[in-house]
């Protein structure tokens, strides 16, 4: 039982830790000392999931840490204009994407170059963002906070703002058991919130776990096609092998986005982007790193008829005769889309724990 393993491991951390996570702490308020109860949250790896990549032991989510992280996530103070919070581009009802925009907007109406990725199951990811520019969840928020076209702020200034705020110093103290607003604690709290965002209750998951659901004939047919033609990259319970690949999108003339090459500097990584999880794909439109495809039909039509060749095009798309693409009939497309919709997790999308209000 995975939960037992985690709790036992957390126990070892606790016994040597001088900070928080230990249930209760006494903080100072204007009315004197106040005992704060801050229980550990239950982070459970779903039975059909791989092990978490995030080191829960180093930053075990607590009730107060999670609440602080959530407040930070929805707080425009993290941006230079006081408006564009993390939640501005990561909207829960669209599995934390910014679906009304092709590429996402930042402060002063500036337009970013990429489509905001959904946020779920981040505790199971090896790297973050479309090109893997962040190797740890705890440091990922540096990118949107400091990007000029996103939140256009500095981490230093965010900390100053939070420290001068009426409520944050108390919330930090409640979450971490002692006084102090720091970058370390801010990133930890954001991670505690994001790590808890586990989406594992789609029809697909329930079937995987042998729960009482059945696929329709069409969903079953779609799954067979998916397993044969898509699952080599969109692999496993997370529907991604977490690799970076060039899937044959024509170079966008506006952004000229070189993809993974920006991170590695390697020409071999030109135009490669992270294989996205397909979880909640029904609600995370538009699609692709720059949101150029509006519907799932568009995506499948792209794979059958819209791909363009380039030196780094993934070999899996190449046919022996020199052409490239995926062979999917119109009927199979309908079936595939039926299957893809079984990946929607309404429990997650409607989970009040993660919602702004």
């Amino acid at each position, binding site marked *: 039982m995975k939960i037992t393993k985690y709790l036992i491991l957390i126990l070892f951390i606790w016994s040597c830790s001088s900070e928080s996570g230990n249930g209760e702490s006494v903080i100072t308020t204007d009315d004197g000392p106040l005992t704060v109860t801050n229980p550990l949250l239950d982070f459970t790896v779903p039975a059909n999931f791989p092990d978490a990549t995030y080191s829960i032991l180093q930053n075990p989510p607590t009730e107060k840490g999670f609440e602080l992280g959530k407040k930070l996530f929805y707080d425009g103070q993290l941006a230079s204009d006081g408006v564009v919070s993390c939640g501005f581009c990561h909207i829960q009802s669209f599995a934390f994407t910014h679906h009304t925009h092709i590429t996402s907007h930042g402060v002063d109406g500036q337009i970013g170059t990429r489509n905001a990725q959904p946020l779920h199951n981040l505790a199971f990811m090896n790297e973050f963002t479309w090109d893997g*520019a962040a*190797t740890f969840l705890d440091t990922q928020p540096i990118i949107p906070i400091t990007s000029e076209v996103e939140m256009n702020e500095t981490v230093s200034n965010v900390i100053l703002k939070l420290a001068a705020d009426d409520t944050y110093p108390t919330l930090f103290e409640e979450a971490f058991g002692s006084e102090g607003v720091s970058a370390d604690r801010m990133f930890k709290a954001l991670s505690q919130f994001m790590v808890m965002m586990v989406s594992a209750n789609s029809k697909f998951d329930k079937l995987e776990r042998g729960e009482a659901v059945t696929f329709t004939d069409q969903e079953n047919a779609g799954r067979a096609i998916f397993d044969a033609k898509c699952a080599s990259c969109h692999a496993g319970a997370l529907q991604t092998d977490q690799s970076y690949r060039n899937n044959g999108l024509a170079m966008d003339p506006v952004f000229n986005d070189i993809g993974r090459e920006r*991170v590695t500097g390697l020409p071999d990584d030109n135009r490669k982007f992270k294989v996205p999880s397909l979880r909640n794909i029904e609600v995370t439109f538009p699609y692709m790193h720059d949101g150029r495809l509006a519907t799932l039909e568009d995506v499948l039509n792209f794979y059958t008829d819209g791909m363009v060749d380039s030196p780094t095009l993934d070999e899996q798309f190449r046919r022996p005769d020199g052409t490239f693409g995926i062979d999917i009939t119109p009927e199979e497309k309908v079936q595939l889309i039926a299957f893809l919709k079984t990946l929607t997790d309404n429990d997650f999308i409607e989970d009040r724990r993660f919602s702004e209000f």
Partner: protein
Amino acid sequence: MKKYFTLLVGIASLLTACNNDESNTATPDPGSLSLTFENIVNGASLSMSPTTYINNTNETYAVSELKYIISNIRLIKPDNSTYTYPVEDSYFLINEDGNKTVNLSNIPVDTYAGITFGFGVDPTQYPIESGTLNFIPFAEEAGMLWTWSAGYKFLKFEGVYSSATAPDDETTFVYHVGSHGANLDNYKEITLSFGEFQIASENTISQTIQFDVAKIFDSIYTLSLEEKNDVQVDPINAPKIAENVSTAFSILE
């Protein structure tokens, strides 16, 4: 869940053995070590632009900015055992135009004969474990964070140069070396030997480590600015610079 929680609290309260215990009076009060990084060229302290130097490729260069990150300091004793300075306090920025001294306090009284330190930030360690999250605002203010990536510039070295063939033609150069995601690790560890020295209670010992700026260009590899004057995310040249840097530190005896 509640059952586990109760169990945990119960067991955790028994495990007091590894809590911090500062009541051990047998250990003498610790001392301090003040490490100054002196940037040099040709054996003399570096002078910033407009002072010029010549590299092995006969390029004349002047330095306008020189910063680097030092981390993960361990002191080596004569028997080769080590004292590891607390990792969360072990990140330092050396800035030719600012602070060049690293003050290490609470060092156990002992005899030491060497030091190991990191150039940059070890990208394989979890940021929480390595304590770098609180270094982020500082690195950011010093311009040592990439803006598009959640990583550090280990070295920021900028200036102007002119080649032997066109001595009046001044061009800027930019060397920014860091790690490239999880793909390329330019973090280096450097070990240097001192003459034996004693850290004494409530005393500060000063040592100077020299950083030979010329070796950025000319050491294991010879780098020409004319060939490449803008090295940022460069999987060919950034590792060469990092290797050269790893040879550039020495102890001033």
